[in-house]
């Protein structure tokens, strides 16, 4: 029988390895589905993701040029993946976010998906969002399957752009882990 003291280093080493694997881009542990997105009374992750195989959460900034440059791209992505049941949700986690302002932004930008105000930044904190256009793809179990930028072009989409989000969604819908589970985010600092 192995003594607890002798097995302790192995246990610690295993834990460290697991942490390293997690830190290096494996499937992230599931989020608490009861986390409210807007306010304590607002919709929870459970409610936002219910029935969708994948949910794309994009952190939004109303005054960020990079955000504006991605409006068309986001609308196109949402239309492309809607038949597969992929849901898009934008979250305004800046300190001055209000439901009224975000409703105006949703209409002005002709978003086919909602912009939810989260002025407390709780969801940004739990998902590690620092910049606008930071995107997280959650599966039905609220596990983070992709995180980072939408693509590699901040303002002007070029022919050699790397489409991080699109490729990740294609991989996930095909039953594969994303080849690139983390992409670089290029948006503005979220004002907290």
């Amino acid at each position: 029988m192995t003594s607890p003291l002798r097995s302790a280093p192995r246990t610690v080493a295993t834990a460290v390895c697991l942490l390293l694997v997690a830190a290096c881009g494996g499937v992230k542990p599931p989020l608490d589905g009861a986390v409210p997105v807007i306010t304590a009374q607002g919709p929870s992750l459970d409610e936002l993701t219910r029935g969708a195989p994948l949910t794309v959460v994009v952190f939004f900034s109303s005054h960020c040029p990079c955000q504006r440059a991605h409006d068309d791209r986001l609308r196109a992505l949402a239309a492309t993946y809607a038949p597969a049941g992929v849901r898009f949700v934008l979250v305004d986690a800046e300190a001055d976010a209000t439901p009224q302002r975000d409703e105006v932004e949703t209409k002005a930008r002709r978003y086919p998906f909602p912009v939810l105000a989260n002025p407390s930044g709780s969801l940004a904190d739990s998902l590690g969002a620092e910049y606008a256009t930071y995107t997280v793809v959650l599966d039905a179990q609220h596990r983070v399957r992709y995180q980072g930028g939408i693509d590699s072009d901040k303002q002007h989409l070029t022919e050699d752009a790397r489409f991080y989000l699109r490729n990740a969604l294609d991989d996930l819908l095909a039953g594969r882990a994303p080849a690139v589970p983390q992409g670089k985010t290029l948006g503005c600092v979220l004002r907290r």
Partner: protein
Amino acid sequence: MSISRELSLAAAVLTAGLLRAPDTWAQACCAGGSAVTPARLGLHEDYLVGVQVKVADVPGAFDDVKGRYVPGGAGTSEVDLEQDLVAAVRFLHRGQVALDVPLIETRRAVPGYAEVGGGVGDVNLGGRWDFSLAGGSRVVPGVAALLGVTFPTGRAADAAHNALATDATGIGAFQGTLGVALEQTFGPFYLGVNGLLSLRSPHSATTASAGMSTTTTETLAPQGSLVVAGAYVFRTEAALGLSVACNAEGNAIIDGAVVPNSSRRQTTLSLLGAVPLTDVWRLQGTLYVTPPWTGLSFDQAATLGLSLVLLRSWS
């Protein structure tokens, strides 16, 4: 490196920051500037290289008593040209290091004589560490530590060969700079303040007179710099701003003795502009002047100049 060159560098640096400001209408953040480097990486940029071109006219000078502007005499003139190769690289997400290699040319004329000289100036290596980012909080501004070293790769005035010292391109001493940068955004407006302190190493100067050469040890006094800049960032991501920079230093020391009335001060006003050409190319410009108002500058050349910087970045 002359004070005027440092000031114009600081102005250029602020302009470099302005090009980040466009990033940020949420990010007017990135305007500020490491006053020890002429190029500053944008928020998500990993590397950049660039070229800076400057031209300046020196129509006069400020006296060392009351700081009165004295126009150059008839037949005298000075034109300063400079080209800088700059590069910057990011490390550990919050840090960046920048290198500036200047080439300097000067044309001076006095009645009956004119000459042109130049060469490599003092190479500068600057670093910046951002503890917090402008625009990231409504309360806490962006705070950064600045660190710089200037190497005496140029020729000091006392080592110049040309009669009018047009081949002098540096201060002849190492210079270490420490500073802090504060910056914040208010919607499309950016405000930044940089404070810097520079210390110079002693250097030997040899002068020849009547067939005898004399070597002295000179130490320039510590120099303090304060740069305040404000800018407006348009939705097109172009930016336009103003900055005020003030450099001041005490009396120099030669062979252990303080040299009276050798302290200097220079105040520079700059109009700053930046235009992103593409996601990776940007152009920025600075029109700078030492205003000819009494008391703002002492024992310094008066300067009116223009600088343009073209930068290519990688994210």
